[in-house]
């Protein structure tokens, strides 16, 4: 039988849930020997929409994009450090655009066979407007998707990793 999982990609968006997902993905990569990618997408599509809606000023658009790129770098570096502490190399993927499309593109470009994402909101609205980008990626991804829950248990699992 070929390896169960060869390439794992964890989606990072700056939330605590996504950091928990990263810890889980590191444990999983350590256990399976799979390559681990961490993907952060700067949501420039949303920023452009806010400019069109006149919620943002032009200089705000640039400022927020710059801030978000810095966020992306910081969180990817953090996940990289989490991986290094456990001897798991992490390949960082930073892109910008429409989040769910960029996630799908990264999955396809890197031949990822498992997408790991953090827990989605507990309460989901019936309104179509309320779906989030990770959820859209989850529905669109061609590969299997793992949703990570129970931050305390994941933290213990990560901490106990040799």
């Amino acid at each position: 039988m070929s390896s169960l999982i060869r390439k794992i990609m964890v989606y990072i968006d700056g939330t605590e849930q996504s950091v928990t997902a990263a810890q889980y993905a590191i444990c999983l990569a350590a256990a399976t020997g799979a390559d681990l990618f961490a993907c952060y997408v700067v949501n420039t599509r949303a920023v452009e929409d806010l400019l069109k809606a006149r919620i943002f000023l032009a200089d705000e658009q640039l400022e927020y994009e710059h801030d978000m790129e810095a966020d992306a770098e910081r969180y990817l570096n953090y996940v990289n450090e989490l991986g290094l502490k456990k001897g798991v190399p992490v390949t960082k993927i930073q892109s910008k655009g429409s989040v769910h499309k960029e996630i799908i593109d990264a999955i396809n470009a890197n031949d990822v066979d498992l997408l790991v994402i953090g827990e989605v909101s507990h309460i989901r609205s019936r309104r179509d407007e309320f779906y989030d980008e990770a959820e859209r990626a989850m529905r669109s991804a061609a590969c299997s998707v793992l949703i990570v829950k129970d931050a305390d248990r994941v933290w213990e699992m990560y901490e106990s990793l040799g």
Partner: protein
Amino acid sequence: MSLIDLVSEKVVKIPLQSNDKPDVLRELVQILKDAGEIADYDTVLKAVQDREDKLSTGLQAGIAVPHAKTSAVSSLKLALGIAPQGIDFDSMDGLPTKLFFLLIASPDRSGPHVEALAEIAKLARSQAFCNALVNARSAGEVVELIQGD
């Protein structure tokens, strides 16, 4: 970070008591203060006023989205004020504003801020939903409407 993760009865006020724009901003920030979401009222208010001074966040169809970044908060904060009577907020279409979504973000957490603003922008496109919010009778009803229950 979804809007429905941020909204709760304690950050919703209906009806607002203010009659003009400066008072609305103060009342919205006070909602956060009263809810225990912020400690430094003055810093948050100044950040919101500074942004508002550049260009009004009063949009069309009775919606305003005052927002700011400040290190006075460590995570994204939302206050929702509803003024069924409408208040002059220098809106794009010149009409009175009835729904006020105040968003305050930490400077190093821009992603969730942008996503929440984008979600509000989408909401604003649904006139029926906005009308339902304006006609809500209590903060609890507003929360239920946003959560879709």
